[in-house]
């Protein structure tokens, strides 16, 4: 039987093997990039909402506190969404004829909730709780960005596990005094690293091992 493989086939085999590794590596890299892309995570994506509600107007210009609308953020897992009644506290008189607010008035008349599009949405196997973060000095803007500047809310962070863990490993890099939780302009280095370490002690934040234990978020 004649030699089926010529001498050159060895090189082809080698190149194929190397290429195989390179392509697999590239594919894996592409996969990691893809799974972190805003297409998958929803980061920075603005959604079409039923009412063009603007945090920039209400928080930035009018100075309404987050808790006026997100009333349960200090006490429960969910931050709480304002019922239509809350909008009507002001819009019974302000812009009472504006067509932009017709869905709000319709909701009030018909006693039907406004259906907002969820912007932040963790998978249901992950447990998140607002009250503990607020109580332990993690401000809204650390996770949500400068909401007071957003005409439409978009996700500032990926909300992926690696993002949660980057803080749970060293929360002392991100915490602030409780009086500044609702300050959207706060920067992490507004206080020194020592002050933040002191805060971590005051808040009695648990060890890195406990905060990265799987059962904290997957319960």
């Amino acid at each position, binding site marked *: 039987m004649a030699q089926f493989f010529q001498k050159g086939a060895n090189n082809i085999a080698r190149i194929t093997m190397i290429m195989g590794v390179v392509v697999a590596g590239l594919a894996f890299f592409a996969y990691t990039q893809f799974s972190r892309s805003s297409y998958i995570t929803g980061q920075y994506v603005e959604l079409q909402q039923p009412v063009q509600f603007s945090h920039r107007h209400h928080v930035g210009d009018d100075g309404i506190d987050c808790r006026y609308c997100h*009333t349960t953020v200090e006490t429960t897992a969910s931050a709480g969404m304002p019922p239509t*009644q809350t909008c009507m506290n*002001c819009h019974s008189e302000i812009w009472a004829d504006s067509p932009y607010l017709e869905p709000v008035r319709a909701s009030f008349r018909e*006693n039907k909730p406004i259906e907002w599009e969820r912007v932040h949405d963790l*998978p249901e*196997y992950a447990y998140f709780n607002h009250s503990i973060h607020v109580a332990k000095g993690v401000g809204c803007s650390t996770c949500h960005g400068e909401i007071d500047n957003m005409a439409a809310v978009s996700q500032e962070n990926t909300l992926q596990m690696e993002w949660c863990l980057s803080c749970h490993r060293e929360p002392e890099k991100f915490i602030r005094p409780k009086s500044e939780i609702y300050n959207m302009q706060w920067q992490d280095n507004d206080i020194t690293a020592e002050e933040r370490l002191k805060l971590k002690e005051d808040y009695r934040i648990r060890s890195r091992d406990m905060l990265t234990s799987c059962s904290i978020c997957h319960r």
Partner: protein
Amino acid sequence: MSRNRIQTHGHGDAEMRAVLSPYHGVTVSRRRASHWLLIAVICVMAAGCGVRFDMEDQPRYETYQKSDGIFSDGRASRTPPDGTVARGHLNEDKAFYTGKIDNPDLNAQVESTTDASGNTLVTSFPNAIDEFPLPVTRELIDRGEERYNIYCIVCHGPVGAGDGMIVRRGFSQPPTYHDDRLRNAPVGHFFDVITNGWGRMNGYAASIPAADRWAIVAYIRTLQVSQNPDQALKMNTNTQANTQASPAVEEKPAANTNTSGGATQ
């Protein structure tokens, strides 16, 4: 690896198989079949993981999730029928939960005056209690300051003059807290206004728990004194206050750290 070894290896393999198969044919083909089965199962499982989202989206309703087709209004839970009392919410302590005296006279006549712009202002509050139904402490006033700055400041302004941001944007101007009518109004009246609303102002019972409403009332009293230092501070507490008030008081989160501002006595 030399060229020979690769080839030998290839041929050798085939030869081995050719040699072994007469004896172990059945075992090998079964083993081979089971390998294929394993690979197939892994493929199916992998494909399954890719297209199924039942861990991401579990068959239960999360907070605010829409119920598909169960209830016509789209909500996933029902509003309890009127008059339903949840466990631990009997709210027997009338003074604490309504700011009213024990047997309010619903037909009591109220006095009123007319202000410069023709609005009718109620000046007597026969059914409102005149004493705080809980002890007034520094913590309560600080808590009240924080809550006032969340819920009331937008209309009533930082010291209660009625010049908040939303009023500047066109909302009706509320009366100032610093006239004789409201200075002399009993604390129960303020509580009632926050709970049920008053005129063009909506009630805030849904957003503010009763204990916090009392904290706000205590802070408004403090503001009134801060703007009129000659006034006697009327912070008398009903010492006979029903002790059932205390669980609700404990509901409030720990006192805040923000102690700046006019909360001095």
